[in-house]
């Protein structure tokens, strides 16, 4: 069966995101809650829909249950399509055994049949754990105009940051001349965002060659891109200038969440352009009690606030009891701060509880952000 598509997306969502510690103990990073009602994967999926890309393969591996059930039929993103739509692609068994995905490139390699089913001209490769809004059609147009084999989305970063990324050096026409993963002394500040558009033919050949290379780590950044460059393929960059963030660590997750509360946030969720869609469990409006006090906060539906909340993200179904105090914190869905408890500079996982009178976190701006995993209860007087 072929149902020809111009461009399909392959969304890598199998990583653990181990640097998020307790937050990804039970769920994959793309399923982590963000911004009160979203999960991180919402942003990539919404970008696909808003970019009119209606066929998305989601590659899952680490603790996929929540992610799978969250994506469901894809209807929340209008991706429940008769032809195409969203497909969950976990590792699978074959007549010769079957393997885990050994790397980003291997994950795509093992699903070449899926890609062939739609016989696209172009394949967009995405990460499911980045926060950004982007029109992939513009990037695709740039790919076509350049007659490129591979287009890599890049953003200009500071020289100090450059050593954390894959860095690309380009000529006058934005054709890539050099690619270095995490260089100690970068000679460019164009950082790869991990968003690629391949011409399918080139992708397929590269993946098949890579699959038989015993020394390969089967990674796009480490293996596929350097090899294509070496072989003289046409690699171009697509320059992106909006907000983009890989919230890979606790401090960056916290900082990005706090930025949402600014009067003019870098990442404006409220913007009407390119709406972020999410799968919503319908919750009632939130209720602020007679003694409740909320300033500089994001508050999700279904929450009930009887205490005080300042400069915090309170996701759906949170509870802040009487006399409780929350500041500079992120409460993930279902988190409860019981009466008289205090939560400062903390991230509370889903359905976690800070018991009555207990304290979590510290006002000290130099202290580490306190983190409570999903469904954990912090008792009064007990350490986290």
């Amino acid at each position, binding site marked *: 069966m072929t149902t020809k598509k111009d461009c399909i997306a392959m969304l890598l969502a199998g990583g653990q995101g181990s640097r998020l510690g307790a937050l990804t103990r039970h769920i994959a990073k793309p399923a982590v809650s963000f911004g009160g009602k979203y999960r991180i994967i919402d942003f990539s999926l919404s970008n696909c829909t808003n970019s009119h890309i209606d066929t998305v393969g989601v590659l899952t591996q680490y603790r996929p249950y929540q992610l799978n059930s969250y994506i469901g039929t894809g209807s929340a993103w209008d991706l429940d399509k008769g032809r195409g739509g969203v497909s969950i692609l976990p590792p699978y068994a074959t007549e010769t055994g079957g393997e885990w995905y050994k790397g980003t490139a291997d994950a795509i390699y093992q699903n070449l049949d899926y890609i062939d089913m739609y016989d696209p001209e172009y394949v967009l490769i995405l990460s499911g754990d980045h926060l950004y809004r982007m029109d992939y059609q513009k990037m695709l147009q740039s790919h076509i105009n350049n007659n490129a084999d591979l287009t890599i989305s890049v953003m200009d970063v500071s020289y100090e940051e450059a050593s954390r990324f894959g860095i690309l050096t380009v000529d006058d026409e934005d054709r890539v001349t050099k690619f270095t993963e995490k260089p100690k002394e970068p000679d460019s500040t164009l950082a790869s965002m991990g968003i690629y558009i391949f011409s399918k033919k080139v992708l397929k050949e590269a993946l098949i060659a890579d699959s038989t290379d015993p020394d390969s780590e089967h990674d796009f950044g480490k293996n596929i891109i350097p090899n294509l460059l070496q072989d003289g393929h046409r690699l171009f960059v697509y320059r992106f200038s909006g907000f983009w963030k890989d919230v890979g660590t606790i401090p960056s997750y916290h900082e990005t969440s706090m930025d949402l509360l600014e009067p003019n946030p870098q990442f404006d*969720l409220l913007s009407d352009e390119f709406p972020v869609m*999410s799968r919503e469990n*319908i919750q009632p409006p939130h209720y*602020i009690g007679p003694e409740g006090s909320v300033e500089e906060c*994001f*508050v999700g539906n279904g929450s009930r606030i009887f205490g005080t909340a300042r400069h915090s993200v309170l996701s759906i179904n949170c509870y802040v009891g009487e006399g409780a105090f929350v500041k500079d914190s992120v409460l993930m869905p279902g988190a409860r701060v019981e009466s008289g408890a205090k939560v400062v500079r903390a991230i509370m996982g889903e359905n976690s509880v800070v018991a009555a009178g207990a304290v979590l976190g510290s006002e000290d701006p130099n202290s580490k952000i306190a983190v409570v995993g999903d469904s954990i209860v912090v008792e009064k007087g007990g350490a986290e």
Partner: protein
Amino acid sequence: MDRVIGLIAANFATDEMGELTDERTIASLPYGGRYRLVDFPLSNMVNSGITTVGIITPYKYRSIIDHVGAGKAWGLDRKNGGLFVLPGSVFGISSSGSRFLLRDIRRNIVYLMRSPAPYVLVTSANTVSNMDYSELLKRHLETGADITLVYNIADSDDVHRTGIKTDGERVTEVIHGVSAGDKAFLDCFIISRSLLLKIVEWYSAIDYLDLFEVLEDDFDKMDVRAYMYEGYARSIFTVQDYFKRSMDLLNVDVYDEIFSKDAPVMTKVQDSVPTKYVKGASVKNSLIPAGCVIAGSVEDSILFRGVTVGKGAVVKNSIIMQSCVLGDGACIENAIIDRSNVIRAGTVIKGSAEEAFIKEKSVN
């Protein structure tokens, strides 16, 4: 509950709703910050396990069809059963206040004839409750009644409801208007499908009447029983009802019961961003849905999605519907501001505690 199909009579109109129903019917009246009244019977049916629901639309059906669509939000976009939109007839005199117009049922008789289910649960679309209809079915089966209708005890604000007189469990009389303490019909009953079909046929010549008007003379022959509902259930017939029953949700016990986690009220989903509270915001005893931006002060009030409350603006004891923008320093007290109104900075709008001021919908 696969033995029961639902029938929601949403073709009820009244002159008592003022400007609020100029462009919509009571069934599609916004309620509780993000819902429409029809969401309550629809969700209750689905939560009770009913998977086939017919909804008799009002004559002004645009807003209700826009809202229910194919029934996706209620999981009623199904191969077997699901949501059936049943066109209602034009009312002659809307103030007749019929909830179960025989003509509406007769016109859509095919819906009832084609179903294999033995029972039909019929409700109006102007009652707020979180009722488990399976309790009603159980009761109906236990007693073997022909019809079991649901009632509760009227309070002093329930003057427009229909009262019932009973002898034991048997209903002997239906009366218009009730006083506090009376048994008041909750516009909800269960009946066997075959009997409902028969009644519609028997009375086809007078199908401009309400089902209970024609049944009144049959109460001695027909076993009509009353079932008392203990939970929160209040019907909305007038602007005053609407205002008061909306504000009931600010009572935490009512909120918890109506918005039960076990039986969630479902509604059409829009992708609203969580509400943003700006520095200087002050909100007390209020219901706020997603998609609002609040810089001013809100007290004892209910907002709907996408409302902006400017700096220094004050909202007290009011209902502000979807997408209204309240300019800096505006002051709204004892008022219902219908959707899409832009209230300029500094404007003062005040109703009285007895009679809320209504600012009608703006065409934006």
